[in-house]
């Protein structure tokens, strides 16, 4: 509880999450410099645009996942919810973006509400509940699409979202992701709801005894995560020109990895949106650089290696986080209550 929360222009909360955020940020910068020096097309407009466009979806679901993990929960359903929403959006694309975009987000919200209902009303542990909605959303999108990709209508303005740039500078998807990140950051760092989210993750029973609206905070987290997944699904359909019921496998893992890389404790009660976004970018960049290396012929990694590397990366991050957590418990847990 420091006084910095009074000052809107204090940038310290941006880098909260202690040394790990700074470390992740430095790692990101180093990787970018490495890439710029080693590959000539790395800094090219095409690579940057396609990198950001592709990772926009992962940043989105990572932001949603971050809020859920802060409450001490987990949302495994994000990938298949995104796939479901991409199918919905693709079907509605002839009516234009103004219909397909809200519909996709609404589809995500619906699954978020379902998650919240199962977790809060039926008292099923989050991990089991969202595993079930993962299956449900997957089944739903397969039934809806007949297990085939659904082409979007190229005649309408739907594909502009994923393929064109705002004011000819920034891809629309990046702009929207930035907006979502800012909203999430403001909620987490500047609102009482954000404080409740952190408190719930720190100790659910204590929060409830303190009179905090535990249920409402948790419901918000799952709804937000669902909406993010829905939006990611719309990006998927719009950017790749098709609703893809089979996409989204393993997305939840990427999101969890990004959140963990960003220094958010999986036990809840601590987390940062900024660090999560940086974490997602770092994770995406690792694969971007691996692709470049493959292209140069230095290494020749099949697509199967990606999974192995992803797992190894998660392992590495957990090792790092263990050390950080240990140091923290030695030096006193003051940082963890900063929110």
């Amino acid at each position: 509880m420091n006084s910095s929360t009074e000052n809107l222009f204090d940038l310290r909360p941006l880098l909260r999450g202690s040394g790990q955020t700074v470390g992740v940020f430095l790692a990101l910068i180093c990787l970018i410099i490495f890439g710029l020096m080693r590959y000539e097309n790395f800094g090219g407009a095409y690579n940057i645009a396609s990198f950001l466009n592709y990772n926009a979806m992962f940043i989105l679901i990572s932001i949603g996942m971050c809020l859920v993990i802060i409450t001490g929960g987990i949302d495994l359903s994000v990938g298949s919810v995104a796939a479901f929403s991409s199918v919905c959006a693709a079907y509605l694309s002839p009516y234009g973006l103004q219909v397909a975009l809200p519909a996709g987000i609404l589809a995500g919200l619906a699954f978020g509400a379902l998650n919240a209902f199962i977790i809060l009303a039926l008292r099923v542990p989050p991990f089991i509940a969202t595993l079930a909605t993962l299956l449900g959303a997957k089944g739903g999108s397969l039934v809806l699409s007949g297990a085939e990709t659904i082409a979007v209508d190229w005649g309408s303005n739907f594909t502009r979202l994923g393929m064109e740039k705002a004011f000819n500078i920034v891809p629309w998807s990046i702009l929207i992701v930035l907006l979502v990140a800012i909203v999430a950051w403001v909620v987490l760092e500047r609102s009482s709801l954000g404080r409740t989210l952190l408190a719930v993750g720190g100790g659910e029973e204590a929060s409830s005894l303190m009179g905090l609206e535990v249920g409402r905070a948790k419901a918000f987290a799952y709804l937000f995560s669902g909406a993010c997944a829905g939006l990611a699904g719309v990006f998927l359909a719009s950017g790749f020109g098709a609703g893809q019921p089979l996409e989204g496998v393993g997305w939840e893992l990427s999101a969890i990895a990004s959140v963990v890389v960003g220094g958010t404790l999986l036990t809840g009660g601590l987390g940062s949106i900024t660090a999560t976004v940086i974490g997602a970018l770092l994770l995406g960049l690792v694969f971007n650089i691996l692709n470049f290396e493959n292209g140069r012929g230095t290494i020749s990694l099949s697509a199967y290696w990606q999974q192995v590397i992803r797992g190894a990366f998660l392992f590495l991050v957990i090792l790092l986080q263990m050390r950080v957590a240990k140091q923290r418990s030695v030096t006193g847990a003051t940082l963890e209550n900063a929110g």
Partner: protein
Amino acid sequence: MNTRVAPSVVDRKPKEGIAWRTLLGRYGTLIALAVLLLVNILITPNFLQWQTLFVNISQVATIAIVAVGMTLVIATGGIDLSVGAVMALAGALAPLIFGSAFGMANPVLGLVLAIALPLLAAMACGLFNGLMISVMRVQPIIATLILFISGRGIAQVLTNGNLQTFSHPAFSYIGTGRVLGLPFQGWLAVAIAALVFWLVTRTIHGRHLLAVGGNERAAELSGVPVRRVKIGVYIICAFLSGIAGLVVVAINSASDAARNGNLMELDAIAAAVVGGALLQGGRAPVFGALLGAVIIQLVKYTLLANGIEDEVALIAKAGIIVAAVALQQGRRE
């Protein structure tokens, strides 16, 4: 992540309606089985035939074998998401070994190694999970996520993602053999369940296991080797997953690393939970897991045999898992 639902003082529900929930909780599994059988007899064509029994036994065995391991893990309050990946890994290794030049030259030794080495690799995976969870104190869901992601990747790297087909009657026996007229792997599943049941109910290890799941701190203070118990259950679970992986490969006479054991973690968790395992730990209903596996398999079969799409079966499975866990939570209040 805190999977425990804190029983708060404020919102305890009145006792009404508890009676039927208790009843449903206690006998729900048996009632569900009876209803499923009845429905099938009424609507599924040719249900009461030997062929149906054979098909179901040969398919349920792998779920049951993994579910028994999962039940032990859940009894310690943990979870193992890596079972499907471990199945893929073990399944990918076996044909590589008996199909190698050495395996061809020494058929008997090759066969023995083709069964032993994959199981050892599986146990190594279990050891990794166990060490991460008990020594490094990583939450089980995250720790086992690592192998869940990369284990299948390793299997695909080993096989270049190719489907490995083979013809090896001796090896295929574990998936296609018959003992007393019934599929070999069915007997294997029952034997494993019996052995594990004996382990849980009649040995000190079983008592330790339940103590760890009931209250880890208390168990530790009273001298239970908590770390060893936890590492042990993850090794056993991985070992059983390895066996299931070999059985699947033997059934198909082919190993497909992309599909072997895919979504098995869900089936196994569902079977364990339907069988009465508490996600909070402290209970290890081994034969319940067997029963749970039968129910999961019967639901799948019912939908499939009545021409309902696979995708709808997914939704049904999701519903079963939620219903089973929600009923459990009701019973605990």
